[in-house]
């Protein structure tokens, strides 16, 4: 936020109070609009929380009353026990964690090869990665399913991990970052007799924390919020992830919006907490990769 600002015209000579007044009126206006947008962005979450503490009769009757008079905290234990929520948490965490670790490892290795090593056909293979990135997931969805079926992986978490693990985006992202690291560092290490893996592990990776962090967040979010793959692959309730779990809950408790809101709140808590703690990385990761992509 330290860079220059459109509306903060420091260098413009100011002609007395008139301009000062206009300026502060303008920033008041800006503030007002920002606030309204913020309310619009947050309102659905507030409605969700508030609804989760009401009952079927009051949720729509006084939906303007966002702080319920008699908060019904027992909606939460009810939701928690009516479907195996703890299991959903565990399954989602497990899948997201393994997917992320796998993606980061394989992508970093490949990105290092593309950015810092020489081998015949390098650029052609890299072009293949880029081209693959252009192809929508839906194209691969059906053959992937057939493949998993033939490998006997229907109704397992392995299938969910494998379909996400090799997305070329990670390779692309890290390669672009590795390119910005000067070669002098690795060259001198090479002269000292370091192996390529040592250079990769001890020099390049520590310098790439920002990019790795971005990839971790992307991959984590992507896997955590995945809906279509669990929908395709999982039949057994005990294997469900949060996203299919919440859909399942929605079907089970059709008209009980207060319980559905409680379940949705439960499903969102982990990701919102992680987001609030790591928001800097989320937002900076998005804005930088967004630009470079």
């Amino acid at each position, binding site marked *: 936020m330290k860079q220059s600002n459109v509306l903060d015209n420091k260098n413009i000579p100011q002609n007395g109070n008139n301009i000062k007044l206009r300026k502060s009126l303008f920033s008041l206006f800006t503030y007002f609009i920002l606030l309204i947008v913020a309310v619009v962005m947050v309102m659905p979450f507030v409605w969700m929380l508030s609804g989760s503490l009401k009952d079927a009769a009051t949720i729509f009757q006084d939906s303007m009353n966002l702080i319920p008079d008699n908060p019904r905290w027992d909606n939460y234990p009810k939701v928690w026990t009516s479907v195996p929520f703890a299991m959903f948490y565990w399954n989602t965490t497990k899948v997201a964690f393994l997917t992320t670790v796998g993606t980061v490892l394989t992508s970093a290795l490949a990105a290092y090869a593309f950015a810092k090593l020489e081998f015949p056909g390098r650029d052609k293979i890299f072009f293949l990665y880029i081209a693959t990135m*252009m192809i929508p997931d839906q*194209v*691969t969805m059906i053959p992937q399913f057939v493949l998993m079926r033939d490998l006997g992986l229907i109704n397992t978490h392995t299938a969910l991990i494998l379909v996400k693990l090799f997305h070329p985006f990670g390779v692309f992202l890290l390669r672009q970052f590795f390119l910005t690291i000067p070669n002098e560092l690795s060259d001198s290490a090479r002269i000292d007799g370091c192996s390529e893996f040592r250079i990769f592990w001890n020099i390049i990776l520590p310098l790439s924390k920002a990019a790795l962090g971005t990839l971790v967040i992307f991959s984590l979010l992507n896997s955590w919020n995945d809906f279509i793959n669990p929908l395709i692959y999982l039949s057994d309730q005990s294997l469900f992830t949060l996203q299919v779990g919440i859909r399942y809950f929605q079907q089970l408790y059709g008209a009980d919006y207060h319980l559905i809101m409680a379940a949705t709140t439960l499903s969102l808590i982990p990701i919102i907490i992680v*987001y609030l703690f790591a928001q800097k990385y989320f937002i900076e990761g998005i804005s930088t990769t967004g630009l470079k992509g």
Partner: protein
Amino acid sequence: MKRFNKKYLVAFMFLLPSLIGLSIFVLYPILASLVMSFTNWDGLTPMKFNGIENYIQLWKDETFKISLINNFYYTGVSVPLTIIFSVLLAIMMNAKVKGIGVFRVLYFLPNVTAAIAVGVIWSSMFTKEGPINQVIALFIENPPHWLGSSLWAMPAIIIVSVWKGVGYFAIILLAGLQGIPHHLYEAATIDGANKWKQFIHVTVPVLSPVIFFCTIMAMISSFQVFDTIVAMTEGGPGRATNVLVYHIYNTAFLDFEFGYASAMSYILFIIILLVTIIQFRTQKRWVHY
């Protein structure tokens, strides 16, 4: 010579895990899908090639056409709205006001939450007596039935997708805004340009590559909308919100028409490719690097 080979070998070792995985789980499926699209395979009985039959069939398939039209409608409205709002929002966020960090966090929040949860929340807000209609009822007499009406179901979905997407693109655009060199504005001011002229003649042209990038990203993802549809309308009422990927999913995993669904997925790919190419072709007219 020998040394070089070793060097290559090491490089391939680094590449191998990713390349093998990519080949098996991405590249092979891409080709398999293409082959499948020329068969009538149902995933169960033996595969039979039927040439371009599927593609001819698609041409006559009313539901496919409807899903295509719906998807163009969704894209055509949601993408411009998302981009316009995110540009405005980015400019607002660029203002030096207190607590801007908090705003950024709040704006971005919808984007990290799962589309399925978002759909569930909004579908409860769009009910006949829900909060949205309670607000609208203050102004008009008969608020729309939203998800219960062919006319209003798609606008409801669009509202949700704009709400979810705006924060994401605003943040990318904000980064672009902050990269605009200050002297450009100074020069404009000296030339006597007011705020609006500065916006049109400085901000938009300099920001145009970022806007261009955002538009492409938004378009591509708008052709892949699925989760929100499942949570909010299941393609209904009737076929009013049946979009491309929803139709592909149903054809593949409910009707088990793998061949036919693969053909649809290739059409989706071609559409995305065409949209991207057209954008790149026309960018010369409005994108300034």
